[in-house]
């Protein structure tokens, strides 16, 4: 079962660039050994932390997008916990969310296309057209009711 995960880890500023790249090759190696692969890597460089972690005020952020199984991510998680110059890391599964977002986007564009055709317009929005569609007003009315109720509580 292949899933898509995002891994972000924060490396202590005390670590050298070599150590950061070595970490990346290590993760890649683990991924390959366990039947996954690293799809994308992004080094965000050194950033200021929002709060101090172990008296560090900065950290190097690295993002990796990994295709693989849950066992692989478990192994990577375990390894990152052991390495002491990785001060934070986060693993998030993203394939399901991406699917939902995609679905919503296609649904919305299809709906707008249908409405536009029903109104006798070309299906795509022309440059220089107004912002509001006919469906927008309906939605606004719904929200208006809700806020009235909220004000009553206060």
């Amino acid at each position, binding site marked *: 079962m292949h899933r898509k995960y995002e891994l*972000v880890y*924060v490396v202590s500023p005390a670590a050298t660039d070599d150590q950061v790249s070595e970490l990346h090759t290590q993760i890649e190696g683990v991924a390959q050994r366990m039947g996954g692969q690293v799809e994308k890597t992004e080094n965000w460089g050194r*950033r200021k*932390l*929002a*709060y101090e*972690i172990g008296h560090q005020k900065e*950290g190097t*952020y690295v*993002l990796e997008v990994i295709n693989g199984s849950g066992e692989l991510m478990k192994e990577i998680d375990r390894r990152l916990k052991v390495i002491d110059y990785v001060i*934070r890391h*986060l693993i*998030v599964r993203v394939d399901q*969310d*991406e699917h939902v*977002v995609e679905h*919503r*986007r296609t649904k*919305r564009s299809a709906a707008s296309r249908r409405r536009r055709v029903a109104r006798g317009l070309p299906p795509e929005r022309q440059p220089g057209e107004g912002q509001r569609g006919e469906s927008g007003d309906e*939605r*606004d009315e719904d*929200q*208006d009711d809700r*806020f*009235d109720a*909220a*004000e*009553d509580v*206060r």
Partner: protein
Amino acid sequence: MNGRRSSGGGRGRASKAQQGKDGARRPMFRRRKVCKFCAEKIDDINYKDTKLLMSFVPERAKIVPRRISGTCALHQRKLRTAIMRARQLAMLPYTSE
């Protein structure tokens, strides 16, 4: 029973009562709040998008409640998970100071 329903008196009364209430409680004009994510059609609230999340985390670093920001329930929920993830990675603060 049928006749009473067809008269539709209940509906009319309700709307009248609401009008009266509005007049009493809301003398001044208040801008209608709209969920930012619905209005701008932002589908995916991502923990990496610090700039967007920052606008919902004021100085004290607490998440702005729905009643203030006007975010809809669905998007507030997604916003919350995104902010909590960003906090874990020290991209956003838990508290100030």
